[in-house]
């Protein structure tokens, strides 16, 4: 699904990702943890194709294609989805209208006719139940006046609508109350299947109780320094990052 090799990325001349490597197979869930400022969001934004992120070296292959050659909108239509850490507000555009444009842009890309109003509404209904989002939210301007948790829930709703191949969740759990966390995680779990992969960025092990990962990686100074199974997250939760730091420094 996704193969990142020796990726080095700079922002404003500063190297953030350094010789980064990661392999994600179809159907797998990978979690990335790590202290603030180690480059987790930078990785997410680079994969999604944000312009200010300058790739100095390395390659990213997504479903057999060179991802780095595509513009952000093309990557999205090819099936990369990023649930933002800080979703933006779009004044005057409802979630419904936004999703109509996005879903149809993707369908067009795949050589399909736009959905008619009836089928689109049916799809909205189904997917909104997945994350238990209230209908009234869908007719409001996107994220405008939404609470932090509502914004995150709206991101997962959009993810469900767009049916991506690779879902990148950047701290989707932060800002969620306990009930919302469970609802969002359940929504994500319902979207899991053999063809869809997940890259879940989080600071808290708790999320991983709900979304059980196949792999957990620890990121430090722009690269993955330790990988393991779900038990690695438990150890980090209990002991913090110091021991990883020490291990890294010893090498």
């Amino acid at each position: 699904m996704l193969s990142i090799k020796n990726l080095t990325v700079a922002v404003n001349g500063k190297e953030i990702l350094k010789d980064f490597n990661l392999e994600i197979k179809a159907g797998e869930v990978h979690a990335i943890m790590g202290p603030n400022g180690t480059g987790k969001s930078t990785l997410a934004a680079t994969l999604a194709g944000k312009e200010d992120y300058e790739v100095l070296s390395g390659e990213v292959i997504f479903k057999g294609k060179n991802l780095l050659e595509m513009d952000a909108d093309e990557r999205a239509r090819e099936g990369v989805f990023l649930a933002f850490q800080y979703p933006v507000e779009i004044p005057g555009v409802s979630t419904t209208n936004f999703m109509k444009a996005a879903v149809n842009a993707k369908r067009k890309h795949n050589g399909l006719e736009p959905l008619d109003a009836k089928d689109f509404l049916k799809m909205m209904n189904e997917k909104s139940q997945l994350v238990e989002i209230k209908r009234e939210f869908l007719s409001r301007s996107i994220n405008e006046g939404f609470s932090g948790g509502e914004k995150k829930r709206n991101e997962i709703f959009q993810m469900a609508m767009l049916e991506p191949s690779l879902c990148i969740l950047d701290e989707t759990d932060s800002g969620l109350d306990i009930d919302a966390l469970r609802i969002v995680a359940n929504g994500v779990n319902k979207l899991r299947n053999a063809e869809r992969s997940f890259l879940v960025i989080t600071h808290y092990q708790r999320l991983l109780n709900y979304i059980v990962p196949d792999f957990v990686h620890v990121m430090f100074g722009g690269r993955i320094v330790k990988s393991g199974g779900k038990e690695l997250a438990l150890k980090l939760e209990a002991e913090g990052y110091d021991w990883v730091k020490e291990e890294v420094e010893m090498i």
Partner: protein
Amino acid sequence: MSDSDKIIDEVVGNDYKYGFVTNIEQEFAEKGLTENTVRFISAKKNEPEWMLEWRLKAFRAWEKMEEPTWQNVHFPKINFQDIIYYAAPKKKKEIKSLDDVDPEIRATYDKLGIPIQEQKLLAGVAVDYVMDSESVITTFRESLKEKGIIFCSISEAIREHGTLVRKYLGSVVPQRDNYYAALNSAVFSDGSFVYIPKGVRCPMELSTYFRINAENTGQFERTLIIADEGSYVSYLEGCTAPMRDENQLHAAVVELITHDNAEIKYSTVQNWYPGDKEGKGGIYNFVTKRGMCKGVNSKISWTQVETGSAITWKYPSCILKGDNSIGEFYSVAVTNNYQQADTGTKMIHIGKNTRSRIVSKGISAGKSQNSYRGLVQVHGTADNAYNFSQCDSLLIGDKCGAHTFPYLEIKNNTGKVEHEATTSKIGEDLLFYCNQRGLTDEEAVSMIINGYCKEVFQHLPMEFAVEAQKLLSISLEGSVG
């Protein structure tokens, strides 16, 4: 090209710079503006004596006036003596088929989705080739006539309906109202006249497009619309297709009058040539538009979509004189590249229980400047007046500017005045968010703009609204990325 066309072409092509002797046999006025120019124009149009006197009064006022400088726009000083104020309607170069039309203009027609027949009419393809439209126009005229509606050029109205014109012309925008209005009053070339009789509801949208003798009205257009008691009319001005004109200065005057229980809905789509990407060329559009709600319970509603012109300076206004009368102003003004717009409205509350509503949506892109200027005036007589103003600005990129100048003059405190304003920006983060959902920059901008302008578009007649939406996307093409 026929022989007569050749002659006209030669005259137009070569002799502009030399000027002409004032001679009624000639097709052009001498360059510059004197009392003789005004007499020449009036004579050319076979106008009655009162009309000439009216024009001369305007001319004498104009001579003593100073050009206004308070607007938030900048341009080189206009030499008013370097303009030719009258040229006989120039015969358009005969275009046999759409293939002869400027490809850039054609491309825009296609993007707008204008039907082929209509494209031909707009591009000035010889009328013989557009028989369908001709027959439409004929049926259209007949059904208006049946209801007693007068819809003709103002020149024709001056000759045929002198009493009506004399009674109302200048009653809302007097000759000496402002510099450009005075200029227009002295030299106006042509324009539209509409009269809707008592109790008649005009059965279709009236548009300049269908006007009898729809000749080139030139730079000083004059429009007068009168809705008699209990009548209704919706009038459309302009069109979404790009309009090119060699006249740089346009100074139109529009006057609307509603009697008791009457309503006029006036919609404009203005798409004059805005100049190139460097800001060269382009039209200066200095317009005076004003409506008078003369009668009780009457209503005037202005809706405008302004995308063209290098400089736009216009404030469609309502004088709410009749008790319970209503004034509305819905506006979308787009500026891109080096365009400048200073536009807004005035709502003058005089009658009791008068209400007004202002919704202004400014969109600035490129290096353009967009100003909203609005005045709400509540006179001492206007008990329980109510105004609501909503002024929003949308910035695309960070090299453009938006400015808001709201003025309030309240002399009666029994009513209520409400003002809301917002500024939003289409910045990189917003575009990236949309890109990440699969939308291109263009798709994202057009989606956001349509959401932003919805409140104004819904006041436009249906087909116009659809075209206006597309027009906006086209005007903003290349403004991001």
